[in-house]
């Protein structure tokens, strides 16, 4: 059992296990902090900067990313100061310039009283939260995609902008994307993610397409079980 620490968030005294982040502790206490790049299945990252909160430790007040900063005894956290809100408003306006349509972003903008971004709309779609890249690396374990470029030219990309050899077509990147930017479809036994095609496997029993072949090969590899073992769909097993 982890040691418990006590802290205040927006004046509310709460207890949380040491080692949890402010964001986790706040969520458990039903205090809402907006966030886009944080995901409990992934290591703390701190890129979107929406979850900034103001903390006071001793004399000093400063802003920290609540998805990374860990709770500590006597910590005072404020989630809604003017300084905090200014950062969030800037961040959401900047993200709206990349994607001003998605309901998830519009919702956060509404909460912050931001009606429209003052910046020219570049409509890139992807907000670079990195959840896809990190999921592929940390959860799936293949690192089929990554980031390319630097600064404003940064984008989620496949190695050398070619069909990614390590992709198992599992679609995790698609499911995890908070703005549904990565397209995926299945047609005639082929799954297409981004613009790359992956053949599907037919179930040995019912004959229905049910999973990408590369994903099953990957399962076979990491479990050391024969491929045939995976070539029957879950329903028929």
């Amino acid at each position, binding site marked *: 059992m982890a040691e418990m620490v006590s802290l205040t968030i927006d004046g509310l005294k709460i207890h949380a296990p040491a080692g949890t982040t402010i964001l986790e502790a706040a969520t458990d206490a039903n205090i809402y902090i907006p966030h886009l790049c944080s995901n409990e299945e992934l290591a703390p990252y*701190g890129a979107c900067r929406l979850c900034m909160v103001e903390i006071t430790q001793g004399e000093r007040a400063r802003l920290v990313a609540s998805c990374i900063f860990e709770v500590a005894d006597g910590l005072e956290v404020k989630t809604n100061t003017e300084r905090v809100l200014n950062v969030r408003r800037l961040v959401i306006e900047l993200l709206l310039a990349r994607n001003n349509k998605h309901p998830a972003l519009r919702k956060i903008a509404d909460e912050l009283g931001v009606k429209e971004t003052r910046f020219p709309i570049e409509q890139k779609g992807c907000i670079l939260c990195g959840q896809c890249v990190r999921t592929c690396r940390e959860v799936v374990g293949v690192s089929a995609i990554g980031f390319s470029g630097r600064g404003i030219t940064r984008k989620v990309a496949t190695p050398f902008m070619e069909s990614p050899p390590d992709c198992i077509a599992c679609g995790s990147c698609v499911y995890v994307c908070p703005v549904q930017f990565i397209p995926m479809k299945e047609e005639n036994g082929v799954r297409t993610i981004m613009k790359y095609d992956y053949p599907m496997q037919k179930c040995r029993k019912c004959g229905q397409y049910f999973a990408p072949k590369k994903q099953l090969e990957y399962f076979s590899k990491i479990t050391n079980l024969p491929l045939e073992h995976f070539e029957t769909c879950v329903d028929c097993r």
Partner: protein
Amino acid sequence: MKKVKTAQELKSLQEEIKNSRDPEKPCITICAGTGCLTYGSQKLVDNFRSEIEKQNLKGKVEVRASGCHGFCERGPLVVINPQNIFYQRVGLDDAEEIIKETVLNGQIIDRLLYVDPVTQEKILHEDEIPFYKRQMRLVFGMNGNIDPNSLEDYLAIGGYNALIKVLNGMEPEAIIEEIKTAGLRGRGGGGFSMGLKWEATRKAPGLPKYIICNADEGDPGAYMDRSLLEGNPYSILEGMLIGAYAIGSDTGYIYVRNEYPLAVKNITIAVEKARELGILGKDILGSGFDFDVLIVRGGGAFVCGEETALIASIEGRSGEPRAKYVFPSERGLYNKPTNINNVETWANVPLIINKGAEWYRSIGTENSKGTKIFALVGKINNTGLVEVPMGITLREIVYDIGGGIPKGRKFKAVQVGGPSGGCIPESHLDLQVDFDALSKVGSMMGSGGMIVMDDRTCMVDVALYFLKFLEEESCGKCTPCREGVHQMRLILERITEGNGKEEDLKTIEWMGKAIIDGSLCGLGGTAPNPVLSTLRYFRDEYEAHIKEKRCPAGVCKALITYTIDPELCTGCMVCAKICPVEAATGEKKEVHTIDQDKCIKCGACFESCKFDAVKVS
């Protein structure tokens, strides 16, 4: 070189080298730092060497290719000792004459002497030149006395004395206390106490512990770290050895950008020679202390100078910073306690150990001790590296050392602290330069870049330049830095193009604060500084661009026109000849005109007109 096994053996070797050298023997030192090398000084070194052969002077006259002397503006530099005669702008073919006249006959070659631009007086000795006279070259001054590839040279000037002292019975805690008492603060930008960082790393649980020398110098115009690594790599190693011993580390890294080939070469040679001598490796000088250094070359991303990005890069990951809520002293390289300091900071360590914390404390201001090397560049007569005591005024640096502004133009501002530093106006010229004073006026020490600007500099354009740099160098991980700096740059660009809007200034001020507050690392956290500081001191210039669509300094192309004053034009045809697009035309001895449709506003006519007939409005 034979391996030394004890401190005593090293000391004897030092003595042996010192005694074998005759201080009265003529020595020709040629600056072979990157600056002078680009003037061709390697050829000069070769010429001196072959001339010595030719004249049968081998063994009688020393020729030394040294690291950077700092006065890059006047290179190639040659110093002749023991007389300390200083020759500047030396021609590549002057070797023969210098040996015959000066070295052998004691005759001074007049044309190679430095002329004080103020008094027009010719100056004979290096230490009498105003550029050097007002400096305090404690760290950088040794460059001129050693060949960076010669460990013997370093030993001859008392090199590794501090290491001997430390291994001869200074407890690690006492070393840390000494550095803390000295008040040495990080020279790479943060300005954090080096002693406290050492202490934290020593006390942090976990082994091994690592130390890192951050040589990923990337500020435009700043090159003091490069020049130290190139010119005196052994002093950096000595500093690192002492730090490693105090911290309890057995592995050090030097992270140096690959764009610094000479620095990479010289530090690599220095490490190899130190290993040969037994100063790096196992059981150093019989003390039981093991330490070795690895050199890691960086790919040139500016953000890799940020310590967590640098660590990521050493680990083989892409150079992206992480949140520093847990300091590298606790969890750094490979999640182990790690101490990172910049080149110049490491170079200060032997000095403090040798001369003592009290001596070191006597230099500088209350909270900033010792000296700082600045890269003095821009619109200044004496471009170069200057090492000055903390607390010297900007005016002394700009006018006494820097020799003022060229062509008699007016000083406008000095940009201190690298791309995310701030522009300091004339009203603050008497500011006593130290860490705190610089932050107070909206600038920062940074790594010590100092870019001087004259009245023909547009401050909006300057802010735009730095913002563009930072936009390109942002790693792109966090939103405020990646998108915020980008959007800010677009707004500034609009302003310089005459499309600024009234609300723009409010917007960039608001953005600036939020970017500083919201960014993940120091790059984004300081990126708005050039904009905010120019806005603070030169708001009227921004307003002129926005409201009057006018660039007061006559720089922003969209807002200026070049015309020729018929009263002043003599019809000399210089502008017509120099104009690359044939916009400036006219007959000989007739008044010339500029075709505005053709003009690309390059300013060549303006620069070349001897009669000030070309006007910019």
